[in-house]
């Protein structure tokens, strides 16, 4: 019996973490940044499911917003796929006054995603 081959239909891609690598050169920061030479900020992309599973770490608000979208008012959007956990990075910088700065910035790389 004829039917769709697996994977031929566009399946919704649910919210997940996507790797992203950016070079310091592409950001135009080579005048200031000594190290590292690239960043790994990553990003979150995908649909938030109607039934939020536990691993997404969604707050109660997201569950209510989903219910409102489903049952009350479709103009209220479903929750968005956004970063949940981040990791810090260390950067070595040249400063304009002739000093060199080592600095740790927090919340620079996305580590996991959530729907909220």
């Amino acid at each position, binding site marked *: 019996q004829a039917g769709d081959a697996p994977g031929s239909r566009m399946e919704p891609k649910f919210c997940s973490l996507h790797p992203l690598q950016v070079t310091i050169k592409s950001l135009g920061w080579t005048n200031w940044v000594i190290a590292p030479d690239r960043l790994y900020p990553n990003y979150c992309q995908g649909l938030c499911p109607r039934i939020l599973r536990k691993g997404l770490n969604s707050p109660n608000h997201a569950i209510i917003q989903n219910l409102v979208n489903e049952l009350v008012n479709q103009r209220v959007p479903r929750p968005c796929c956004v970063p949940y956990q981040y990791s810090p990075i260390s950067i070595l910088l040249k400063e304009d006054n002739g000093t060199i700065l080592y600095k740790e910035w927090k919340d*620079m790389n996305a580590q996991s995603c959530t729907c909220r």
Partner: protein
Amino acid sequence: RVNPQSLAAAFELPFLQEMTGKTPKSSFTGQSLQYMRDLYYRSASPEGLPWENRTLGATSVRLVPASAWTGISTRGPWYVQSLEYPMAMDWERQILVRTAVVYPSVLRRSGTQFLCQVKAETRENKPNAVERAFQVVSTQSYKPTAWQESDITAYIRQRLRKARGWFSFWLHWECRRQRARGSFRTRWRGKANSDTPFLLLYFNDTQQGYQEVGTPLHRRVR
């Protein structure tokens, strides 16, 4: 394609202000740059991820080169030099954890041991407010093997409190070469300006958005 107004607004964020200030001066010497590179790779991976077991004890370390210096006097066993360092701390955003002076490579490369006395003299950035009080901040024996630092945190903390963040001070180095293998005739090497000691300021940013420190302050045993 970006709206210039929104781009300008983005560049008012502290993170981008620090990342993309004015084009830096090209006065970074190989020595200080190499020191900071070493410090960086001891504290973070090549991808920029801070190591779990890093021992900096601070979220930021600033290397301050001397802004002025007298010529190096190297008569016989003596090495004498005076250097000026501008100090600028943002009291509202930065908490000083540690201050250290890293001694010049001219000592490191000379192949003998030194006994050095470092004296400090503060000059506040106000007219008629020059404080001419020499204070011995460190007496230390230097081995010609690796980078060594003199901790002058107590002195700097005291001065910072008094000057509310802005002052400059002079460091006077008086080092005596220890009699090693019976001679002072070994020639001095590396008298370039790049051999001047530099200052390291270890501090934590209190502003929201910076990494909090969990590791305790690591001090070198003297």
